[in-house]
């Protein structure tokens, strides 16, 4: 086993260590391809099965696109109109939940980070709590709460956003907190305040641009979770995208699978966009706001 050369000025030893991309003992390209290939293939099977299912013609066998064509040609009228309504509900809920995350969670996280650092563990505990108290348990106690909520805010589906904000807390918190930890928020705020910025300016022109990555990641994860949420909506008898899909699947499983495929593709594109947008222009030094 060669140890490698240490240069005279004591530079870091790299020789002799099998390195890939700067990581020691990483698998070779061949191994990586095999492993990822096998796992990828196995994971692709259900997706392929979904596609094959939607292409089936019926009892006679054979495959064609007739089901896709009928669905799109009918323009989602008639039997499938409820799905469009439900999708609208889900999108409205997503907007509401993102609002709660951005307007309620983020200021609190910043406040704790800047002003009350000793409360950070408590905030972290609260935000991780919804994992320990899963939606199925929460919903048992949400029904009485929602009878009061509906009296105050009316009966729109959007009131579910309050409950969704809770279920989204762990994911959003982790995404935003990692960003806050990476950016020196305290110094930035102090600098901005010294230069005479009001708190509103500090938030809008100093903090938000720097935290954009975490905020976007948190927001998009919230959207993904809300679009896929079923438990609370179903057990509180509200209509959202997932409950509508289940209703459709009882009468027409083929359409349900087509819609699921579309929803999965949409979510995948959405999350790809997070990856892109989030890693946009690197955090530049904003000591002096432009």
């Amino acid at each position: 086993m060669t140890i490698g050369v240490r240069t005279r000025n004591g530079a870091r030893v790299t020789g002799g260590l099998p390195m890939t991309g700067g990581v020691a003992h990483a698998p070779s390209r061949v191994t990586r391809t095999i492993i990822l290939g096998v796992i990828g293939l196995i994971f692709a099977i259900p997706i392929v099965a979904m596609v094959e299912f939607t292409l089936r013609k019926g009892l006679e066998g054979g495959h064609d696109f007739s089901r896709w064509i009928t669905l799109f040609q009918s323009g989602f009228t008639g039997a499938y109109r409820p799905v469009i309504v439900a999708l609208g509900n889900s999108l409205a809920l997503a907007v509401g939940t993102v609002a709660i995350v951005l307007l309620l969670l983020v200021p609190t996280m910043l406040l704790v980070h800047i002003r009350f650092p000793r409360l950070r563990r408590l905030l972290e505990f609260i935000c991780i709590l919804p994992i320990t108290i899963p939606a199925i348990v929460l919903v048992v106690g949400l029904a009485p709460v929602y009878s009061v909520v509906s009296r105050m805010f009316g009966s729109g589906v959007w009131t579910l956003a309050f409950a969704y904000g809770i279920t989204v807390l762990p994911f959003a918190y982790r995404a935003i907190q990692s960003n806050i930890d990476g950016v020196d928020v305290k110094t930035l705020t102090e600098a901005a305040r010294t230069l005479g910025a009001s708190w509103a300016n500090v938030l809008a022109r100093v903090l938000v641009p720097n935290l954009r990555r975490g905020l976007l990641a948190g927001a998009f994860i919230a959207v993904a979770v809300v679009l896929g949420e079923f438990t609370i909506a179903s057990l509180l008898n509200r209509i959202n995208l997932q409950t509508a899909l289940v209703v459709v699947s009882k009468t027409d499983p083929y359409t349900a699978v087509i819609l699921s495929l579309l929803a999965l593709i949409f979510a995948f594109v959405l999350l790809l966009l997070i990856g892109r947008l989030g890693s946009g222009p690197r955090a530049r030094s904003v000591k002096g706001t432009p």
Partner: protein
Amino acid sequence: MPRPCSAKSGRQLSSSVRRTAAAWGLLPFAVYVFLFLAVPTLIAIGTGFFDNTGSFTLATVAALGDPVVLTTFANSFWLSALTAVVGAVVGAIACYALLGTRPDGPLRVTIDSLSGVLAQFGGVMLAFAFVATIGIQGMITIYLRDTFGVDIFENGVWIYEAPGLILPYIYFQVPLMIITFMPALQALKPQWAEANATLGGGAATYWLRIGFPVLAPSFLGSLLLLFANAFSSYATAAALVSQGSQIVPLQIRAALTSETLLGRQNLAGALALGMIVVMAVVMTGYSMLQSRAARWQR
């Protein structure tokens, strides 16, 4: 929160007054969490201790000892444990395979997005996917039957009961493992590998003596997280299983729906209590392991 701007008036408030003012800023979030997390949880747990007339009773909680409920908990346990272990192992292997790829490269970004989608997005659609794959008329079922003459449903249709949940659960456990375990693998310091090489060790020694021990807390922590994830999962089961309540979340569904007929009031509350106890134990273990793991990442 704007405070009387020093630029305007030059007056400074005392720090304790400012502190109190800032504390009010915490109020909206506190109220929100109280109303929509604390209150429902207390109601969910609390109703298990009261019967319909409002008087305290331990009978409903004692109903958790009913053989049907115990079997349900047992089913939930083995299902969650099995899928957690398989998901953790497969996920760890996948993470290993991703070691050394560029974090911003197309492969990683795609896999991150895919993992994000599959881990969080909709048990309902997963249920449909698996009905299309191994359902009674599923693609794989028909393929196995026609090509190999193997009828996977020879001994009963298991896909619509607890065993049928294994494959869908693994399908979202593996991506969750990739998401949670990758940071730990990435935190393996190159200096350790160098130290290993300097002391004459090879790849085997590296992994056995350094890699596995360091990664063990993270791995176990992620395993516990996967267990908790499967235990509390409802949507996939609800979409697949239309009759019967083989796991605890489905039992809660049945208790909430048939409350009028089951003759046992507030069973959902008792079940919720049982679930929270299990989840609390698991998540405490998880956080202990996480802080253990964090020691290595400093």
